[in-house]
């Protein structure tokens, strides 16, 4: 049984004539690593938003673990899927970098000591420990992106859906991110990565999906 299943899904934004996602049928297995690539405006982000239930398709069905996605609430989806939005500023809402990473862990019911431990691990891993007391909005674009990634990765979801995770981040951290992703993938976490960075996903994702004009043009395994 597939983990996320889309069955002839179409979505048109209000006031637009052409659909942003047009009759897409696709399925992702648990623990699969997939890259979604395509030109600007080809509907990748829209597809990702549909998969995490932020948008409702006008046509077609989406199921998550065999249950229709409408039956889940957003927090329930959030516990299964880690979603990184294309714009990191929309995901930062805490008063310090440290709290940003700790936020989800606290709500997950992690013990205080345990949460602290995980936070420190991630902040040290990405070399942003020095920023721990900074306001997240005052960071550089790349730093924001890293903080968001740490906050989502720390939650250890079953599957990660990331919209351009490598945007703005330097090569040093990109390599670290790649190593980490390979590691968690080997431990069974699914990866769905939307990107323009072919090098990054080259030996990370076995499956590559090409999108154009809201449709899937190719699906290479």
């Amino acid at each position, binding site marked *: 049984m597939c983990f996320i299943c889309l069955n002839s899904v179409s979505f048109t934004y209000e006031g637009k004539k052409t659909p942003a996602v047009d009759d897409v049928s696709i399925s992702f297995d648990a623990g699969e690593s997939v890259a979604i690539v395509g030109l600007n405006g080809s509907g990748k982000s829209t597809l990702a938003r549909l998969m995490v239930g932020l948008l409702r398709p006008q046509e077609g069905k989406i199921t998550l673990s065999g249950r229709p996605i409408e039956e889940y609430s957003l927090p329930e989806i959030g516990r299964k899927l880690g979603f990184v939005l294309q714009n990191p*500023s929309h995901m930062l809402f805490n008063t310090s970098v440290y709290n940003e990473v700790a936020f989800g862990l606290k709500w997950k019911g992690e013990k205080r000591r345990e949460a602290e431990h995980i936070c420190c691990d991630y902040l040290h891993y990405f070399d942003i420990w020095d920023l721990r007391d900074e306001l997240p*909005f005052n960071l550089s674009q790349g730093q924001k992106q890293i903080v968001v990634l740490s906050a989502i990765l720390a939650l250890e979801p079953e599957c990660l859906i990331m919209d351009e995770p490598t945007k703005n981040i330097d090569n040093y951290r990109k390599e670290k991110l790649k190593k980490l992703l390979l590691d968690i993938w080997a431990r069974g976490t699914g990866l769905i990565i939307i990107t323009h960075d072919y090098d990054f996903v080259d030996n990370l994702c076995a499956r590559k999906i090409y999108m154009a004009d809201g449709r899937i043009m190719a699906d290479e395994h």
Partner: protein
Amino acid sequence: MNIDIRTKLLISAIFSGMALVYQKIDYLLIILLFNILTLALFKIRIKLLLCIKKLLYMSVIMIVLQSMFVRTGHPLLKPGGICLLTDDGIIYGAAIFLRFIILILSGLFVLNSNISELTRGLVKLGMPFEIAFMIQLGARFIPVFFEEMGEILNSVQLRGVDMRKIYKRKVIKVYVSIFSPIIYSVWDKAEKLAILLELRGFRTNPARTYYREVCFKKIDYVIMILYVLWAAVFVGITLVR
């Protein structure tokens, strides 16, 4: 029909003014009827009303509450000897509801037009350009603001916070914590916008020209006179009665 924004402003002012002056249901109904006819005449999309559906719900609740506090008239609902609702109360509530709708509809009438057209109209009416421009920017950024707020609320929930299941105290805490980044981002945006405006030469030349001028046409005068006449007749009749 393509009419000048100032004509629209006048019509809207007539209707909202009348809605505020009159209190009787029968008069308000007639005003509402004309208001709707006007909207239809100028082909305003009533679909816009759907955007303010929540506001309407809220007003209904308010009206119900209001009418419960009117004590005069014959009691209609009297559970356990306590007078809850009187016929006067219902009439009072209905009148408020009608006023509300007329105000919203006349607001829609203006909002339906192009926002930069509104700016030009306001400038022609003597408002300083800076202020008119600020109104334009405000109107432009309100949807962006709400979008951002929705986006952040979504990402809070996607991190596993169930707003419906947590305690009230905690909900407030979460909202407060979300609000600060939003205020911050609005502030940031405003600052950047100010710089951007200067970079593009905002106000370097005091005599500003317009690519599209707003101007009155014959039809505008005709419509304005018709509406003023209508209002005068209406007021006259109600005064005589």
